[in-house]
């Protein structure tokens, strides 16, 4: 208990510098705007904003990215409420009751409660994050290569079993990502693999290029169908962005009880804000005395998923910071950007760089307060940005994505690679091959292979080592259970 407060004090020391506070503010606003604009999710936002973290020290860079991620969670629901179009996938649920509230003239209340719920969900999520990260990191410090390998296998398998969609296509996506990660000079033996004499492949495929390809270029391509859409809303009748005492009371318990749910879902790999929000909406509807009001502007139907969503984004930071394993597209992008700055999140982050680990956590507490302040009085001016048409936004995203790619290595072949990745990503999205497993496998591939080979060195080549070590065996069992669960669930769905 005592050490946690000591650590937090170290964190606040980092977070409370002028530069870091400014970046929390800037990142929060950029994130809110990016989260708000339909078709632009937090992953795209962080991907195209990677260049602004150049020249920052790692702590400031991670603080900025966390603020963008976090701001996007606040912003996502703005578009759902105003124009019935979710800003990102985790804001779909906010349309159910948010838009009906706007139609009945309560847009101001809806905007206010969604910001307040985001704040409360985030606050509860952060408290869990503070108390959970140190123990998880300490436990993970004792992991040998066998445990690391099994943990990564579990994380990769879970990204496809816990999310929706075809299992085989997900597995294919993982295999492809792992294959791409083997291109280049082998770190252990120095052998060239799959370079075909092309010198630019020697250093391997930079996963940040692939990330920008599938999250920026592909997103632009996907949105090309809707470039002529113009969103119309009436900003004169938003009303006061505030809630009454009764409305707050009505939403209070739904916010409180859905935050832990969201947090747990966020910790699990593959289950992001989309699942958290849908589950919390279903739970509130079941618990409610007036389920018939849901979908017609029930304030708790908006408050509950908003709280769950922000708690979920805090949960997602637990595996990222403590294990170095991202569980979602956005956290994968954050990991990639950090590795570019020479920081490898993982259990050692808390012992070697406590100022980074705790600085981020402390900055998120500050960011949470800044964001609720931004999103209440500035709600009305901010939603005006929804009027910026797609046909202006898309070229800008494309441009930022491409120059960001160039800045990574000053390599013109990366620009060709990012376009190829964007086109392939677009084809995959049409064929419903999920992209996050590919990105995760590509990032984790190197470490997965190293821990695999190191374990077999330890065991003299016997794969039994993965089952003999209890923690490693536990992760393998978990992976098997999640696979079985997914198979049964899909059988049932098919039977319906």
């Amino acid at each position, binding site marked *: 208990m005592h050490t946690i407060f000591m650590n937090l004090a170290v964190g606040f020391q980092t977070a409370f510098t002028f530069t870091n506070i400014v970046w929390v503010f800037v990142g929060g606003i950029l994130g809110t705007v990016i989260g708000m604009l339909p078709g632009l999710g937090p992953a795209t936002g962080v991907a195209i904003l990677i260049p602004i973290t150049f020249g920052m020290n790692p702590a400031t860079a991670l603080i900025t990215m966390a603020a963008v991620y976090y701001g996007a969670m606040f912003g996502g629901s703005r578009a759902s409420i105003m124009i019935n179009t979710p800003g990102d996938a985790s804001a779909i649920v906010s349309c159910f009751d948010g838009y009906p509230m706007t139609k009945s003239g309560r847009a101001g209340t809806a905007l206010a409660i969604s910001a307040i719920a985001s704040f409360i969900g985030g606050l509860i999520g952060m408290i869990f994050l503070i108390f959970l990260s140190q123990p998880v990191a300490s436990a993970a410090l004792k992991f040998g290569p066998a445990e690391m390998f099994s943990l990564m296998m579990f994380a990769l398998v879970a990204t496809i079993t816990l999310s929706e969609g075809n299992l085989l296509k997900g597995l294919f996506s993982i295999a492809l990502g*792992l294959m791409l990660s083997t291109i280049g000079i082998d770190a252990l033996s120095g052998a060239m693999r799959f370079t075909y004499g092309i010198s630019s492949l020697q250093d391997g495929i930079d996963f940040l290029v692939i990330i920008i390809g599938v999250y920026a270029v592909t997103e632009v391509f996907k949105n090309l169908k809707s470039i002529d859409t113009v969103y119309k809303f009436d900003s004169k009748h938003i009303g006061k962005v505030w809630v009454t005492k009764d409305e707050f009371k009505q939403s209070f318990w739904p916010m409180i009880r859905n935050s832990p749910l969201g947090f747990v879902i966020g910790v699990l790999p593959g289950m992001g804000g989309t699942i958290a929000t849908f589950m919390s909406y279903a739970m509130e509807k079941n618990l409610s005395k007036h389920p018939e009001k849901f979908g017609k502007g029930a304030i708790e139907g908006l408050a509950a998923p908003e709280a769950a969503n922000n708690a979920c984004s805090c949960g997602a930071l637990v595996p990222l910071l403590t294990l170095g394993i991202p569980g979602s597209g956005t956290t994968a992008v954050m990991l990639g950007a950090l590795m570019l700055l020479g920081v490898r999140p993982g259990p050692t982050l808390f012992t070697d760089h406590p100022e980074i680990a705790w600085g981020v956590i402390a900055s998120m507490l500050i960011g949470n307060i800044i964001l609720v302040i931004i999103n209440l009085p500035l709600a009305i001016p901010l939603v005006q940005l929804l009027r910026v048409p797609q046909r202006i936004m898309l070229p800008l995203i494309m441009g930022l994505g491409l120059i960001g790619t160039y800045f990574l290595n000053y390599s013109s072949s990366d620009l060709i690679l990012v376009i190829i990745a964007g086109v392939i990503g677009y084809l995959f999205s049409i064929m419903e091959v999920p992209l996050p497993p590919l990105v995760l496998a590509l990032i984790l591939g190197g470490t997965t292979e190293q821990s695999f080979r190191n374990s077999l060195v330890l065991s003299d080549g016997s794969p039994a080592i993965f089952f003999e070590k209890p923690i490693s065996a536990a992760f393998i069992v978990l992976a098997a259970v999640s696979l079985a669960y997914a198979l049964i669930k899909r059988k049932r769905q098919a039977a319906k």
Partner: protein
Amino acid sequence: MALGDKLGPKVFPYVVGTVAIITGIALILQDRNPAKKSKRADFGFAKHKAVWIRIALISLAGIIFGLAIDSVGYMLSTAAFMFVVSILINKNRYVQNIIIAVLFAVITYGVFAVALKLSLPRGFLEQLLPF
């Protein structure tokens, strides 16, 4: 490390490759089973012809941008790329697109080359600048 590394660099790619092949075969077999047949992917080449043409042209512009940036210089190539992409997406608004393209190139150059001091390719335009 290489000392104890009996496995060598080949095993992991073999394992992963085998998994990929098995998944591929399983996907084909799954599609032969009419009960489990997945929806045929709808690329909509005919229905969304305009979108595909735009994707092809934007991709081409991106590749040319990549080939040209080092010799032409950052600002000129970026402005040209932005203008082409804007024209493809934001049709017929030439003045608006020229303003977007020029502002984008100048502002990003200012932020990244001048303020953040990244060494961006200098063509003849950049060489005219005092910094």
